[in-house]
């Protein structure tokens, strides 16, 4: 009965609406009867009254048992009456009211849709069927034909269409005389030309209808003859696309700097399945690699993949192991900014993606080369137990050439709806050559006495290295019918190979030596190092939803790293005699096993998980000074239990609360483990430690965020602390005679840090001005052993920042920020040397739209570095500006004049205070230059006045 009330209501509404006007000929009643072709009544048909003007629905009703319907009190006018009944072609009739109070249409016949069309098209192919008078339109994409099929093959599949052996087409029994594509005739009159040549894949719709003859169209006289016509509509996305962008610029030599140039070109081609891109760039303006946008354009659909992590662990934390190795990444580096020194860069690559629902394939090749010239001035002041200080100055000049080739492959295959297989392979081949010339001086002072020069060293390092690294991963994921039950298995093989050679020439003078022999040391060595590091990993994961809202996760990790190092150092001044103290043959197996389990509760935005894992490390190493000598074993086993607790709470009104406790494990790097002595800097020798244990960090953190999208107020806060067990620290011993520093890693427990960040943003005036404030605090307590004395360094860092975004008008925008950072450092071994360093910066970015379609962008970057104790005070204002105009009617080109560092003050500076030293560094870098550049972008150039967030 309820549905009746609805109908009654609607009638009531309609009726009451019109009831107010006086009854006249302006109102009428429309009635009729819906019947099928056998004149049997069609009860419950939908009857709609549409406005003839735009087909908008005015009223609707349903027919009764006898198929009859009535619309009462209808305003006089023109309408379309539409009757629909499942399985029949909707009936349409134009209703022109001629003034009579009751218009009776009598029986209205609805024709059946052929069973074939209904069953095949609508039910099976789920294709919408469009009925336009006598035209029936099919959705071609619903009819599956094998890849590579022609339109002819497709037509054969369509109900009501026949294609004979010669390719002649008949539709609804009549011969098709004309085939058009998107309404236009296709290469002449032969209908077969289109159907035999066009790919079925390219077609979205097939329309069959009667068209006027060509003759009738030409003469404009309708001869009444109609031709059966088939129109093929092309797919929107199949219309293949391509776009490209080219930038070229040059600037004159000036200011002791040679001619500047930059060029970048990219081209992308795509269709619904494939993406292809090519990229080439070169410059001598310190732009080393791809910007974030360049990277996304280059990699397309494969820019970011979320589920590639094969190292299973506690949910929420991605990696379970960290390696200290500083190898260059296997994947394409993203970097935009201005590098240090002077660089000349070339890069380029090709990328191809093929994506279908079941298979996703991506491959790329990327090449980059950087030639770097770097002149640096470094100063380091270190504090030794007692009241001794050492001051070292280092003036160096370096030229490097680094070339890298990277190949990537990724295949994701959906085996069925439950299983996914992923194969990833990334590799890098690198060549490096470097020439470094350095002059070092060491000064010693005891207590407050005057400084005494102790050492002078001149050295030349010529090095070359070949590197090859590859990582292959196979990852299998299985979902079960039971929701939330998951299984994962993965295997990884990684290899790092490095063949390096260093020619070291050094002349070291020790002024305070007591014997003549010790006064001068000359090194002339050839150091060859071949190393291989192979890593085998296997991982398992199983997730079981054991109760409503509860998940039980279990994982197992196996990890074996095999390192082999063969290092031969020969004295070139002594007929290439081998120097045993520096040479080494070393092998080790680092085995790691972990089994862990956790329970998670997830419901209504609250996720809590708690778990524990047991892990064991086994080091099985062997070393000798030479391959021919007997190997000495090193064996260590280390077992630990690591807990993990996490909380994520998504609260009402955009508030989030998070808390986490976990233990991070860092395995010593291969380099730190090798008992190798490296004297590439003769005054700062480093030595590996085969007894190193993994570093454990107990991390505790909490965060709270709030965001109000209505008022645009943001608040982000967090607090974190870490306590280290077996922290890998670099302890130093200083030779009392030569003041040569030897650094060796060791494990120390007790280091910790504590920090907090707060960020608050709000609009000063909505859409016009936004202010963000931020502050952070970090307290660090670090341990190192200096000459066997334990030194505790306490760092306190405070920073404050403010950011202002002004976007008052379309023609002017300003983005500014200021940051201040203070670091206090205290050394327990030498309390008189406590330091305070300041790093302050101000940045402003102004965009203006000028008359005549000119745009101006100006940035000021002001940095200040201060350390009063060291009397170090450096201010660097960097002012850059560019003016550009978008040219051409189509707005596809841009001409730009840029001036970088207009004040000619660029020097890259950094300062640091920690461990037992403070250091400063000044690097001469590319300063003032001008450039005129031209950009052509096939998709058009748009001025960049604002930062977009989308």
């Amino acid at each position: 009965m309820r549905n009746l009330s609805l109908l009654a209501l609607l009638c009531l509404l309609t009726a009451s609406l019109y009831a107010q006007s006086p009854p006249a000929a302006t109102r009428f009643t429309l009635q009729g009867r819906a019947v099928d072709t056998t004149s049997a009544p069609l009860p419950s048909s939908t009857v709609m009254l549409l406005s003839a003007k735009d087909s908008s629905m005015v009223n609707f009703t349903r027919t009764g048992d006898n198929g009859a319907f009535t619309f009462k009190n209808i305003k006089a006018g023109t309408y379309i009456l539409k009757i629909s009944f499942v399985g029949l072609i909707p009936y349409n009739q134009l209703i022109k009211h001629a003034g009579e109070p009751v218009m009776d249409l009598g029986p209205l016949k609805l024709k059946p849709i052929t069973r074939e069309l209904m069953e095949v098209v609508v039910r099976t192919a789920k294709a919408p069927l469009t009925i336009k008078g006598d035209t029936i339109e099919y959705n071609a994409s619903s009819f599956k034909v094998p890849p590579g099929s022609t339109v002819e093959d497709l037509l054969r599949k369509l109900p009501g269409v026949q294609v004979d052996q010669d390719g002649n087409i008949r539709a609804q029994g009549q011969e098709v005389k004309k085939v058009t594509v998107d309404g236009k005739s296709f290469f002449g009159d032969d209908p077969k030309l289109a159907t035999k040549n066009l790919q079925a894949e390219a077609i979205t719709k097939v329309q069959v209808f009667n068209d006027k003859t060509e003759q009738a169209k030409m003469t404009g006289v309708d001869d009444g003859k109609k031709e059966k016509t088939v129109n093929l509509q092309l797919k929107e996305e199949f219309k293949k696309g391509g776009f490209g962008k080219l930038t070229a610029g040059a600037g004159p030599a000036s200011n002791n700097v040679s001619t500047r140039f930059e060029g970048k070109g990219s081209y992308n081609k795509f269709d619904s399945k494939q993406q292809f891109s090519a990229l080439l760039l070169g410059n001598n303006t310190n732009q080393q690699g791809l910007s974030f946008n360049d990277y996304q354009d280059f990699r397309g659909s494969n820019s970011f993949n979320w589920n590639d992590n094969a190292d299973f662990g506690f949910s929420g934390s991605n990696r379970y192991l960290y390696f200290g190795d500083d190898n260059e990444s296997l994947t394409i580096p993203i970097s935009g900014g201005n590098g240090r020194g002077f660089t000349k860069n070339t890069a380029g690559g090709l990328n191809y993606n093929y994506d279908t629902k079941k298979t996703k394939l991506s491959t790329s090749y990327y090449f980059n080369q950087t030639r770097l010239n770097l002149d640096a001035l470094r100063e380091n002041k270190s504090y030794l137990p007692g009241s001794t200080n050492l001051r070292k100055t280092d003036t160096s000049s370096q030229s490097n050439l680094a070339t890298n080739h990277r190949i990537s492959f990724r295949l994701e295959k959906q085996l069925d709806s439950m299983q996914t297989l992923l194969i990833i392979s990334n590799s890098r081949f690198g060549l490096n050559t470097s020439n470094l010339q350095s002059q070092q001086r060491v000064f010693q002072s005891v207590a407050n006495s005057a400084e005494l020069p102790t050492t002078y060293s001149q050295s030349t390092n010529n090095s070359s290295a070949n590197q090859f690294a590859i990582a292959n991963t196979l990852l299998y994921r299985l979902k079960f019918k039971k929701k939330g039950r998951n299984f994962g298995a993965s295997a990884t093989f990684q290899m790092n190979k490095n063949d390096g050679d260093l020619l070291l020439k050094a002349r070291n003078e020790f002024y305070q030596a007591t014997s003549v022999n010790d006064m001068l040391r000359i090194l002339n060595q050839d150091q060859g190092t071949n190393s291989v590091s192979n890593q085998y990993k296997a991982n398992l994961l199983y997730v079981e939803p054991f109760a409503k809202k509860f998940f039980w996760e279990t994982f197992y990790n196996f990890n074996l790293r095999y390192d082999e190092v063969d290092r031969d150092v020969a004295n070139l001044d002594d007929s290439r005699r081998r120097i045993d103290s520096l040479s080494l043959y070393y092998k080790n197996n680092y085995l790691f096993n972990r089994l862990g389990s956790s329970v998670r509760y997830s419901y209504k935005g609250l996720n809590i998980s708690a778990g524990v894992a047991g892990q064991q490390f086994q080091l099985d190493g062997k070393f000798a000074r030479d391959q021919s000598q007997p190997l000495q074993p090193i064996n260590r086993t280390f077992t630990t239990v690591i807990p993990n607790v996490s909380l994520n709470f998504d609260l009402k009104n955009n508030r989030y609360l998070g808390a986490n406790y976990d233990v991070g494990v860092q395995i010593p790097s291969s380099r730190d483990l090798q008992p190798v002595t490296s004297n590439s800097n003769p005054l700062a020798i480093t030595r590996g430690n085969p007894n190193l244990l993994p570093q454990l960090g107990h991390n505790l953190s909490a965060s709270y965020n709030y965001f109000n999208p209505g008022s645009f107020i943001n608040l982000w806060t967090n607090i974190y602390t870490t306590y280290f067990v077996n922290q890998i620290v670099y302890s130093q011993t200083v030779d009392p005679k030569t003041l040569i520093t030897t650094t060796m890693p060791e494990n120390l427990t007790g280091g910790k840090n504590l920090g907090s960040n707060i960020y608050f943003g709000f609009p000063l005036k909505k859409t016009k001005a936004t202010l963000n404030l931020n502050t952070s605090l970090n307290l660090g307590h670090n341990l190192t052993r200096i000459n066997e004395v334990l030194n505790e360094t306490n760092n306190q860092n405070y920073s404050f920042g403010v950011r202002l975004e002004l976007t008052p008008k379309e023609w002017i925008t300003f983005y500014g920020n200021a940051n201040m950072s203070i670091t206090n450092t205290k050394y327990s071994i030498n309390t008189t040397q406590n330091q305070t360093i300041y790093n302050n910066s101000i940045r402003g970015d102004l965009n203006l739209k000028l008359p005549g379609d000119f745009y101006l962008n100006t940035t000021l970057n002001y940095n200040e570095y201060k350390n009063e104790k060291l009397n170090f005070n450096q201010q660097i204002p960097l002012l850059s500006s560019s003016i550009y105009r978008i040219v051409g009617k189509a707005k596809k080109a841009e001409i730009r004049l840029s001036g970088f560092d207009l004040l000619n003050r660029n020097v890259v500076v950094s300062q640091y205070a920690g461990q037992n030293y403070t250091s400063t560094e000044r690097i001469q870098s590319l300063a003032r230059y001008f450039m005129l550049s031209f950009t052509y972008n096939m998709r058009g150039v748009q001025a960049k006045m604002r930062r977009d967030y989308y």
Partner: protein
Amino acid sequence: MKKLVLVLCLMVSSMAMAQKTEGVVTYVRKDYWSKMISRLTFLSQEQKDRQTQLRKNWEENNKGTKMKMAFNANESLYTYFSTEPEEGGYSWRQYELDLYRNFEKDKKTDIIEMLGKTYVVEDSIHAPVWKIGNQIKEVAGFICMKAETEDPVKNQKITAWFAQDIPVSAGPERMCGLPGLILELNIDDGTVIIEATNVAFRPLTADDLKLPKVKGKKIDDAAYDKVIRQYIAQQTVAHENPYWEIRY
């Protein structure tokens, strides 16, 4: 007047008895972000293309959000299918969304959480003006007809497919007022698609049509449209995508 209604009721009563007019529809709502981004007027073609290329595979893998609607001839309630995470992932809080219609009384109550507030929109139904098309297709086992309308506030083209043989005026999201139950909505050429996956006819219990007890700011349709219109205008000026925070 009342007599007329009565006569009409009687006339259609016999045929309506045979009809199925009570049950629960399950929908899947999918948002296609690259299309949404492509409609942002402040972005350049280059930025739009970049997003389209980048998001291709993510959108293919998007399983959408399951929604449900309880309906009978007079009432309907549209809300999330479940608050539980699909496939055992992390649970995220959903913005409150409960859209209730009473066709008999011409009343609606929409509980919508957005822009940091919970709104309770109470007004008469205000069904859109529909244009009826000439296409039929099948959705969830029902032959549906095409109807089109426009959302003047969000400036969207909306296509609805309504079942010829379920004589209920209800529909998903804020759409309704057709001669049959709306089983599919397509907003702006597939930018958002809400498609029925199942229609289960069964007698409803009182709980099926019960709105949760939620405190919120009571407003009417005009005020609601104003909030949306202002927010879209604001975000467009600020070069930000408004649809991260409001439903497209």
